[in-house]
């Protein structure tokens, strides 16, 4: 079984994100970038399927500018067999990524596509679902456990109020939730070996996709800073402030 895993380059989760001075975007200058944590979980799950003898090949794909090859290399160091980089400039929105991934799916014909449920930068939570719609493949989103049984894939989903188990026909799409697994560390020997693994580069045109944009980013601003507290004089003032300023009692 061939498994395709999508990985996205995002600002490292340890970095305190700052907005640019003019509010036009997030400031990415000299910021440490990393593989999106949910995508890392997706890679780990695919590699575990391979180690269990269920998957035969794991392909990591990323859409973006040239530096996102670093994140593909991370996936290769974690155990993916080869990489595909779809080189696209600028801000790519989920629908376009889903169309590009559909192109890769058609080329590679994987039995299973695993994606992160969302990326920690855009928090869109759309790409996996859109890919499902475009490819007509069944989807199991927010997965906390997956198991291949013959031609079926059982997915335990994290839904409001508990867990839901669904059975999908393969080929299928899975998006990962936080508790699916704990990704391993890429070891030094595997980091060095990853350099030699195959990495193919496609343009959107190779996949028959035109990169378009339906969304305009209007403004990025940091959350409002918390105001300094004050000391109240007495209980009466406290009650007054809670009633009329904080409006938490009536």
């Amino acid at each position, binding site marked *: 079984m061939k498994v395709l895993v999508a990985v996205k380059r995002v600002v490292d989760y340890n970095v305190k994100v700052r907005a640019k001075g003019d509010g036009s975007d997030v400031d990415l200058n000299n910021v*440490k970038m990393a593989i999106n944590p949910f995508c890392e979980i997706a890679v780990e799950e695919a590699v575990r399927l391979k180690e269990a003898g269920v998957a035969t090949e794991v392909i990591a794909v990323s859409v973006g500018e040239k530096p996102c090859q*670093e994140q593909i290399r*991370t996936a290769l160091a974690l155990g993916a067999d080869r990489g595909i980089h779809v080189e696209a400039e600028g801000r790519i929105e989920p629908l376009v990524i889903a169309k590009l991934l559909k192109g890769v799916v058609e080329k590679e014909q994987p039995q299973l596509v695993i994606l992160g449920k969302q990326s920690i930068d855009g928090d869109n939570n759309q790409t996996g679902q859109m890919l499902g719609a475009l490819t007509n493949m069944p989807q199991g989103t927010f997965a906390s456990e997956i198991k291949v049984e013959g031609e079926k894939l059982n997915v335990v989903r994290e839904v409001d109020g508990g867990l839901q188990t669904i059975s999908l026909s393969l080929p299928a799409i899975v998006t990962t939730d936080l508790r699916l697994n704990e990704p391993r*560390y890429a*070891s*030094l*020997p595997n*980091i*060095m070996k990853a350099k030699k693994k195959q990495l193919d580069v496609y343009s959107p045109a190779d996949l028959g996709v035109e990169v378009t944009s339906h969304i305009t980013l209007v403004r990025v601003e940091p959350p409002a800073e918390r105001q300094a507290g004050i000391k109240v004089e007495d209980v009466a003032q406290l009650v007054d402030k809670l009633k009329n300023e904080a409006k938490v009692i009536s």
Partner: protein
Amino acid sequence: MPLDFDGARLPNPHCGEEHEAWRTQLRRFIDNEIMPFAEDWDEAGEIPADLWPKAAAVGLLGLGYPEAYGGTSESIDSWHAWITQEELARIGAGGIPASLMVHGIGLPPVLNWGSEEMKQRVAPPVLAGEKHIALGITEPGGGSDVASLATTAVRDGDTFIVNGSKTYITGGMRANWVSTAVRTGGEGAKGVSMLLIPTDAEGFSRTPLTRKQGWWASDTATLYFDNVRVPVDQLIGPENQGFWVIMTNFNSERMAMAAGMEAMARVCLEEAVAWARERRTFGKRLADHQVIRHKIAQMKQKINATQAYIRLCYESIETGTANPGDIALLKVQASETVEFCAREAMQILGGIGFMRGSRVERIYREVRVNAIGGGSEEIMRDLAARQYGV
């Protein structure tokens, strides 16, 4: 420009994508598997045995050693080594890397000078984190004056009979083998040999040295040899050539220590700056007082100089033109830098820095072991003066 651990590191054009990939993975490993426990392990005076196999799995123990013995050496260069030392020092509890990585001084004599049989027997289990090897040079009667060591190995047929003792031996309590400097010949440097002594040999005993200023997590020991019989084929390198085996070991040890010390100085800077930006006195932040600003700038100045000097020495190692005198003085530069930065960071932290449980407090206590171990500042300057033909 941020003055945190990463922000205060000068750019290094030699570091590429795979170097940064290693830093990322190593930091993840350290942040998850070591950092949360560092203080407890240091207070307990011990690190758990399962840390070694974990460190082996991530590739930390095998870094730079040949693949034939379970290491990773292909395409590995000084920059991987530098990153590794930095990240280990960032823990801010020097006893942990000192003990975890002690094979870094114990194993190279075996791999550089030992027989193939010895390498095959010792290196794979050490690099897999299953067994441990330490280096035994210093004696109760003297450390820096290696040529005067007094532990004897007297030939008796196919064995040496070893008598004497070694002290301040890092990793000594856990070691399965000790690469030991012994006197096989006459007086002076030309009578010294290196011998691989198994710690399960009859007549070997050891006691822990627990009451130390710093490096609490390290299993430092005194070792005793009472008529210990060791087969002559356990010589590391030729008989009476041990002094050169020891000397060739020192450069990489000193580079590793210098890299670690600079990173420790950067930890001090990071902690001091974070506190100075937060703490308010006399109506403004500590960081707004000129006296504090100057301390911070001076710390960065010394850190910058040390980083540039480290890079220069690693560059010379990469091109095979290293000067042992320059490396000896780098070690002094680094220990003076961490001494200064630990002091100034403590002054900025004030009372909170005096309390146990912070990285700066531990680093302050670990300045001396770095300024003395692996060649004291005085010996380093003397060595350099001799190298420069003064």
